[in-house]
């Protein structure tokens, strides 16, 4: 630690940061551009922010995105937890290979293919059963659940495979039935993984454009769809403002969780010290 930073390391550091954060900095800077032309600096201004917040189209899309992301993340978490549990616990059952293959397929499948296949499926279902009549919230949420579940399954499977089964056995030994054991012992212990699975699903759903384009209809356009269409029609500085807000929200979230985790870890260390001291 005592050795000074050499110019080479410093250079790498600067280049690395520039590579990672440069685009974002440009974006944030231009969100305060007074000029309507994206590529020309016309002085400092915050005019795009109020304009953005009064733009009902943007607000509506943000709301749609939020609804789609939270509903699909919730369903994906429930299904993914169940699938992860089965895959981690039951090493052998008929159809395990196809099951695990199908569950994780969306991870490796190109999004265009997933999107197209879902679109065809919905159309076919409509001709056969008269459902879903049109593309909209239902179809986009179903599509998002499908691929978000894959991520949650991976997270939960790895969590369950390191879970100490003797905890469940102890609960049953003390008289708890299997379902109760799962609800009062297993679930609270894996809760952090469930939460991170949900957040992962939420983020991925919020971010998705390709599958959404295939499965969404009018009236339920999401934020990525709106941004995409706006950019196509000609760049608009309000998009910069919108992106800046998103970056601000995400950064706040990351920094807060980091502080909370550091604090929890410090408390843990203190507890361990305490336990060692009280051990006569």
């Amino acid at each position, binding site marked *: 630690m005592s050795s000074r930073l050499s110019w080479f390391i410093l250079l790498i550091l600067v280049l690395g940061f520039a590579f990672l954060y440069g685009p974002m900095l440009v974006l944030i800077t231009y969100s305060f551009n007074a000029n309507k032309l994206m590529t020309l600096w016309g002085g400092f201004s915050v005019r795009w922010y109020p304009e953005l917040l009064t733009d009902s189209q943007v607000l509506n899309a943000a709301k749609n995105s939020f609804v789609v992301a939270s509903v699909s993340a919730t369903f994906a978490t429930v299904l993914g937890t169940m699938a992860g549990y089965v895959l981690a616990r039951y090493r052998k059952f008929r159809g395990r290979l196809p099951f695990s293959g199908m569950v994780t397929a969306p991870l490796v499948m190109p999004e265009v293919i997933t999107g197209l296949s879902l679109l065809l499926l919905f159309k076919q279902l409509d001709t056969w059963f008269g459902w879903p009549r049109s593309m909209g919230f239902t179809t986009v949420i179903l599509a998002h659940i499908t691929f978000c579940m894959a991520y949650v399954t991976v997270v939960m499977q790895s969590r369950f495979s390191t879970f100490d089964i*003797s905890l469940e*056995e*102890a609960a049953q030994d*003390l008289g708890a039935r299997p379902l109760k054991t799962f609800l009062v012992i297993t679930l609270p212990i894996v809760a952090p993984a469930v939460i991170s699975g949900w957040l992962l699903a939420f983020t991925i759903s919020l971010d998705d454009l390709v599958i959404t384009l295939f499965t969404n209809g009018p009236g339920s356009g999401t934020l990525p769809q709106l941004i995409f269409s706006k950019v196509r029609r000609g760049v608009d500085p309000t998009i910069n403002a919108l992106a800046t807000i998103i970056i601000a929200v995400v950064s706040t979230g990351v920094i807060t969780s980091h502080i909370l985790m550091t604090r929890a870890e410090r408390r*843990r260390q203190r507890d361990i010290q305490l336990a060692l001291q009280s051990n006569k």
Partner: protein
Amino acid sequence: MAAERAKAEASGQPWNDPDAVPYIRIENVTKKFGDFVAVNDVSLDIYRGELFALLGGSGCGKTTLLRMLAGFEQPTSGRIYIDGVDMADIPPYERPTNMMFQSYALFPHMSVEQNIAFGLKQDKVPAAEIKERVGNILDMVQMRQFAHRKPHQLSGGQRQRVALARSLVKEPKLLLLDEPLGALDKKLREATQFEIMNIQDRLGITFIVVTHDQEEAMTLASRIGVMNHGQIAQVGTPKEIYEYPNTKFVADFIGSVNLFEGQIVEDEPGHVVIACEETGRPIYIDHGISTAPGAYCWVAIRPEKMELLKTDPGSKSNCSPGIVKGVAYMGNLSIYLIRLDSGKEVKVTMSNQRRAAEHAIDWDDRVFVTWHANSPVALLS
């Protein structure tokens, strides 16, 4: 010690009473995992109030047997009865047993108090009674001041006491303990051993302890079942197991032992004479073993039952000359490694009765190893 306790029990030694009804009956139980036979046709009767130890090395099937009693594994064949009830279709949460896990398996998201109360809550015991019983058991294991701590805030010994309290609080008919003292240091281990024996005396619960530590089994148990390769090698009181092992495996597994290979030349009701190349002079045992002369057998003699002399006592049997090849001074006793004239090495333990004895036996001394005629045990397998 354990033998005395067993004797003090009102019913005496139920395993010697042909009319006694066993509390736990294990009948021809076999457990296979794929092709691997973990438990192989084990039959065992355990009586009410016993502290029974299942002793064996790792992979001998002792833990699998315990898990079948708790209901976590189903026997491939055979039956298990607890208090006369067939356990075949009874799931773990309905069995009258509680188990203390080797890993303790304390619920990490619950405090000490909540961990202990968990079992009572499942039985819908009223809140006031739960509070009282948890309080009592916390006092018993001296953990009252830690009631609100989480398991990760406890040391190994404290966790072990919480696990014991949690398995005891429901006052099960049968308590199963899987390597209960494995993770403790020597001092704490001894203290806890006596604590477990106290609790067992006070509550009269039947205990089955699984352990790989023979010293632990000897101290704790009223009877020991020695297991090997999924089978019960011998069942008996600690004294029987130690003094009269029935196989070479048991003799070797429990304590330390010198084994000699020999051939029976004389087998009368009152004595046996065994010719042995390793000892030179024959081995004379003062009780018969009723087998045909000419049979080959093993003779086991415990190191503390042998004695070293510096001069030849001149006896025709039970004496073998050798050279001292090593001395380990342990304080209360010394262990000598003797190379007999045949090249066979034996261990002899002698207590250090006198301080720095003038007749001290030292490296490379010529000595004569002798033993009493009732010390050797002849083993046919």
